[in-house]
């Protein structure tokens, strides 16, 4: 097969926290054959949490009468009424501030941003009023709030509707940042987020809303919840670790299929959580495979991949057989034209090529656009 040398793990090279393979296996074995779209998964999670706890409310533009800009809140206004499903005026700063105040006083708001691009209007409240409040008030003011909405690139929506905010929010202590990929992630992480006493930024993806994924009976149960801060190994492998989140997990899995046919066994990690970042799982995987490719749609500088790379260099430097490869969106505001847009976001081929580079495989130079 491949002539990849394996480093011998030197005694004493194991850090204090140890190397434990955290069991992040999938909950379901899909034996039942049930499928659910991400949209329905989110809707059912919201419904169940609102039913279980009367202090949970949903607010945002178009969430009520319109059933949600992306129909994620379909049926909720009819079921819970306008007191708990609130159509807000157009002021992200305003309704976010209001929601934070409601959270200060004991409600559990779920704030929907039509896209996280619009959250920039509210970012002062997210960071200064929500994230830092528990600390600044020395534990007197907790903010059990969830900010959710589509994040990152959609299709043909241009520069002001396509930015990925994972790196921005994940840099702030006091916030938790979650990034579901499939329906099970969507249900389990949203339920966990709503129940969490800390402010959570919940980054969805518009293009995933309509995608259907198998879902297990456990995941359909109303008490189902995924732990925050644990990544999931979507596919085991031994030659290279590919770390991705949100839509890119799907691309990474496709890339892994292609790589498998060429004799490269890729391990795909679905981060599920950017803050806290599951450094243990990533490091454990890299210590096994000795190669790392990170994939994200966001801008390259100061991105999520940069943080993962730093973590590996700090914790597992001797285990790397090749430099870390970061696959990111292009360092340009997102263009609109379909061909340009395609070039500005990572594609499956980019991941495949990067993985091969880490395996010292030669890659054809000419690439078709």
């Amino acid at each position, binding site marked *: 097969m491949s002539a990849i040398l394996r480093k011998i793990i030197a005694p004493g090279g194991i850090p204090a926290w140890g190397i434990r393979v955290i069991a992040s296996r999938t909950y379901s074995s899909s034996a039942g054959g049930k499928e659910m779209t991400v949209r329905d998964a989110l809707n059912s999670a919201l419904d169940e949490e609102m039913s279980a706890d009367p202090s949970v409310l949903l607010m945002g533009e178009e969430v009520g009468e319109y059933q949600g800009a992306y129909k994620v809140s379909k049926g909720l206004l009819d079921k819970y009424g306008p*007191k708990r499903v609130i159509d807000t005026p157009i002021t992200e700063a*305003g309704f976010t*501030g209001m929601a934070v*105040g409601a959270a200060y006083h004991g409600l559990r708001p779920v704030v929907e941003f039509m896209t996280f691009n619009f959250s920039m209007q509210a970012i002062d409240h997210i960071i*200064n*009023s929500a994230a830092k409040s528990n600390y600044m008030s020395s534990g*007197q003011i907790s903010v059990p709030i969830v900010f959710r909405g589509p994040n990152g690139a959609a299709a043909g929506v241009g520069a002001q509707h396509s930015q990925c905010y994972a790196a921005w929010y994940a840099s702030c202590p006091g916030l938790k940042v979650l990034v579901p990929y499939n329906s099970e992630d969507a249900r389990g992480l949203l339920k966990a987020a709503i129940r*969490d006493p800390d402010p959570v930024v919940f980054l969805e993806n518009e293009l995933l809303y309509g995608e259907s994924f198998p879902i297990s009976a456990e995941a359909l149960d109303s008490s189902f919840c995924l732990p925050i801060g644990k990544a999931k190994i979507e596919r085991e492998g031994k030659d290279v670790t590919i770390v991705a989140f949100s839509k890119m997990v799907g691309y990474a899995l496709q890339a892994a299929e292609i790589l498998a046919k060429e004799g490269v066994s890729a391990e795909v990690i679905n981060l599920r959580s950017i803050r806290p970042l599951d450094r243990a799982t990533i490091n454990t995987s890299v210590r096994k495979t000795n190669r790392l490719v990170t994939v994200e749609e966001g801008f390259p500088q100061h991105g999520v991949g940069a943080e993962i790379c730093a973590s590996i260099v700090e914790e597992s430097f001797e285990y790397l057989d090749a430099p870390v490869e970061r696959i990111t969106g292009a360092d340009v505001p997102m263009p609109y034209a379909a061909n340009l847009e395609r070039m500005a976001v990572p594609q499956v081929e980019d991941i495949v090529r990067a993985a091969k580079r880490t395996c010292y495989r030669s890659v054809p130079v000419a690439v078709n656009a």
Partner: protein
Amino acid sequence: MGFYLSKSRTVMHNLKPKLGSLGVMFHQSSGIASFSHHQESQSGLIKNLGAGSCNRPTLFTIWRSEHFKAEKQLDCKQNSGGPQVLNFPGGNVKFTSELDFLPEGLEERVHCYRILDENGQLTSSNFVQISDELAVRMYTYMAMLQTMDTIFYEAQRQGRISFYVTAIGEEAINIASAAALQLDDPVFPQYRESGVLLWRGFTLQEFANQCFGNKNDNCKGRQMPAHYGSVKHNYFTVASTVATQVPHAVGAAYSLKMDRINACSITYFGDGGTSTGDFHAALNFAAVMEAPVIFFCRNNGWAISTPVGDQFRSDGIVVRGQAYGVHSIRVDGNDALAIYSAVRAARQMAITEQRPVLIEALTYRGGHHTTSDDSTRYRSAEEIEWWRVAQCPVSRFRKWLEKEGWWNSDAETELRASLRKQVLRAIQVAEQVEKPPVADIFTDVYDAPPSNLHEQETTLLETIEKHPKEYPPNFSC
């Protein structure tokens, strides 16, 4: 009107204009009968303007009475054929063939509710009576705030604390408004309302501890001085961001409304804070959601060095409430009785009618913006001095107390001496207490400390142990 009703949206659209969104109308609330006198004089002002302007048209400022009155009260006698009306989205609107622009403001500034004049003389009996006990208590706390501010300010100048914010000139706003509220009413302050927290029971020692950031500080040394907060006193922690607390108060009010609690929230902000987007969104939201919140604006004339003339061109803040459909009043911010009455009435209105209320208190910022400012650089010392002496809310209230026979110069001397001693002692004690333990760097970032912070704390403690000479001797762990 009771609590929140789940009306359909179309019904709400039709209801709104009928509730008199234009004009400063006060609903008759039970128990505040004394308010009606003020109501008449206010709407009398409006009526006079309306009638008068029919006779003195100018290019842009013809002020029609229709603009003020709700449709059902219209009695202006033009329109012989009957005006045409259309039910636009938002309600019935009458047409007019007059090409009129609303003027940028009224001929006269909105009147200011005042009871005590500068000499402490009652100018009217139209206020909420208070007992001698409450009056003396209010005065004591106004003097306490004044003393605390003076001495803490000096402490900063001496280098003993790094920073301080005084409320000089705004003692009546602080204490009288707090006295008119209940402990159940959550307070969302800006940063010049420490008197409200003082009234609620935060001790001088606790204030001093926070300013010194010592280990007894209930904020664990996390914040700059004067950024107090105490959940026990229903006073939400001061943040440096301007006017972010205004929409927070609306959210909290919504929470009170949902839980049907017999309380309202109150938020304080300055003239400068009203320029923010947050102010606009908060007022707008509160009106739409019918949230029981009091918006209290301390219009003290200055936002650091920006005078109100550079801040806005409206007649202060009171006129803006109307634009959002919010009941509003302007009060003399140096008159404790006026403030007390206004806040009592506002609270009653907010709770029983489930609506927001805006109070604009006109006053003057007697001190610098903070200890990092020297306001003599942008305003004259004479101006400051005049306001501090002639309009001092504390001495005005004292004069009234003395006239009532509830206070005298002996009591004054005794009180001042006692307060000075208490404040000085609080500072002396706070200065000696150790700083917070190192562990307090890492707690409260989240509800439960995450593993990475545990690791960092361990590493830090190991480092301190290894290199004790590189850390201050009073570094507790």
